[in-house]
């Protein structure tokens, strides 16, 4: 129990408890309790019998729900789809943000304030609205994009089973790149100007300076961005929900969150939904730990 050398009264446990209580109370109600209840629910199931018109019995089934969830091809397919989504999304979005931030920081860039505002604009649009706008932008007959491509002779259906994943990735890229550009750009402002001056004096061009000096120095900010992006990906729900209304390619169980929603509200199997939610939460925790470990090891190097 560490104590400051100048012991301040009124800064100990009891006062701390007063200040911390509101937050931890809400935390317990909004995070701990639901997860605990879910855990309990996930070990039970509703059993009907015969023709099923006679009502159901609740019984303890151990890990049966978890087995069923993992055996479900649509659930594991959804997990695989999320992995693929990450593989496309993270390089595109992070790469785009890094390039944009470096461009903004280039000495020859003009109207920086305006560009920053514009690049951040999509973030002011809530996810639902962004998905709605892009759903229209992908619909043949309404979309200027599709029309432009058609007049050039290219027939692309952004919403068919092959293209719908990249199309949804694009929505997320549109929403989040600007946000991360601002983070990276501000991190770039902390790069000591003397080092850049020295590099210039030594004859390094703008691009070389960017790659070998600026980029390594923003790696800490990058690793935080990647961490939050990976966690955010596990949350994927809104965009597929909206796009699913515009195309049959997005099934009702397309990503794990949709699978859990379907289990709870369409198949009326709350116990399986609980098991799926626990699995998703555990995956998120595990991934976060992995990414944090990896990036701190990288930052130490």
């Amino acid at each position, binding site marked *: *129990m560490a104590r400051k050398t100048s012991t*301040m009264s009124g*800064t100990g*446990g009891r*006062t*701390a408890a*007063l*200040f*911390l209580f*509101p*937050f*931890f109370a*809400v*935390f317990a*109600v*909004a*995070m701990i309790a*639901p*997860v605990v*209840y*879910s855990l309990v629910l996930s070990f039970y199931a509703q059993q009907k019998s015969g023709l099923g018109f006679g009502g159901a019995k609740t019984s303890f089934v151990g890990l049966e729900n978890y087995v069923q969830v993992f055996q479900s091809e649509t659930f594991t397919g959804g997990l695989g789809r999320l992995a693929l989504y990450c593989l496309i999304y993270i390089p595109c979005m992070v790469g785009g943000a890094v390039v944009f931030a470096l*461009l903004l920081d*280039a*000495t*020859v860039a003009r109207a920086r304030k305006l*560009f920053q505002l514009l690049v*951040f*604009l999509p973030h*002011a649009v*809530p*996810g*639902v*609205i*962004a998905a*709605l*706008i*892009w759903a*229209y932008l992908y619909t043949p*007959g309404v979309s200027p994009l599709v*029309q432009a491509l058609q007049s050039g002779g290219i027939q692309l259906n952004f919403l068919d089973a092959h293209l719908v994943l990249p199309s949804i990735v694009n929505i997320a890229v*549109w929403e989040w790149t600007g946000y991360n550009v601002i983070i990276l750009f*501000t*991190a770039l402002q*902390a790069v*000591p*100007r003397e080092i850049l001056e020295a590099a210039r004096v030594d004859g390094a061009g703008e691009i070389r300076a960017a790659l070998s000096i600026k980029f390594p120095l923003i790696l800490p*900010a990058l690793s*935080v961005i990647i961490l939050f992006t990976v966690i955010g990906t596990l*949350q994927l*729900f809104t965009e597929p929900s*909206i796009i699913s*209304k515009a195309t049959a390619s997005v099934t009702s169980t397309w990503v794990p*969150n949709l699978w859990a929603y379907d289990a*709870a509200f369409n198949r009326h199997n*709350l116990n399986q*939904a*609980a098991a799926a*939610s626990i699995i998703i*939460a555990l995956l*998120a925790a595990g991934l976060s730990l992995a990414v944090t470990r990896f990036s701190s090891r990288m930052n130490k190097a």
Partner: protein
Amino acid sequence: MITETVSAPSRPSAGVARRKHDDGSRPGGKRPGGNRLSREGGFASAFTVNALLVLGCAYMVLPVLWLFFAATKDTADLYGTPAYSLGRFAFVENIAAVIGQDGGIFFRWMGNSVLYAGFGAVLGGLVSVMAGYAFDKFQFRGKKAWFGFVLLGVLIPNTATVLPMYLLASVFGITNTVWAILIPVLCNPFGVYLARVYSSSYVPDETLEAARVDGAGPVRSFFSLGLPMMMPGFITIALFQFVGAWNNFMLPLVMLQDQQLLPVSVGISIWQGYSVPQPEFSPMVITASLLSVIPLLIAFIMLQRFWKSGLTAGSVK
């Protein structure tokens, strides 16, 4: 360490603290830099860089622009006329339709969004700030472990807890009430994390010590000294929580059935559902989307400064 408090190193010729120029303009004006060798790239390089920036921004802006144009069209024109044209300017009719639908439920939805987001921003912000302040200023047993809990909360995705929250709420019968939204919206572990950072940088320990010597209790010094000093931080955290609550989709979708309680994003998605069998809903969906985005856009433009500080504080540990 936050970038805002880094005042050096700046260019040798300028004696101005960096803080004033965190939008990237160099002290001394926006000239491309006289003594920089990049001049050799010449205008070609300047042109490329700026052209790429313009392209990038166009990608960001054009979809929103589409929304403006589309909101001026009725159903027939939506499918019939090119995207960036005005068609038969039906903007006023569309707005009238949105306002009139279901007895003005759109306003109700907007009001609900403001309620949920505002409540989360102000009260939730206060809750987060108090906790962050406590983690920063107070000493107590197991502080590290408790803060570890907070970090864990940051890392668990929102949607993983929504369904369990619904299951628990139905046991207590509070689904389909405003409390089903107002309570979860208060919980923002990231806000606690940010508050701790702001507290350590905005509120010097010495000031608090002086207050204590003068006889002020911890609660009083928080409200009369600590919080006012942290005000920019508080506003940033409140802003983040406001936007987070406003954007929240899965939670209200799952918790609320009564149309009168829905926030605007869920309401619009319901109209999108109606537009399938009744295509005249499409212009309403678009116009409503536009109307719901405008307040946020204005807030963003006016409160840029706080946005940037929050983003950077969170990313530079």
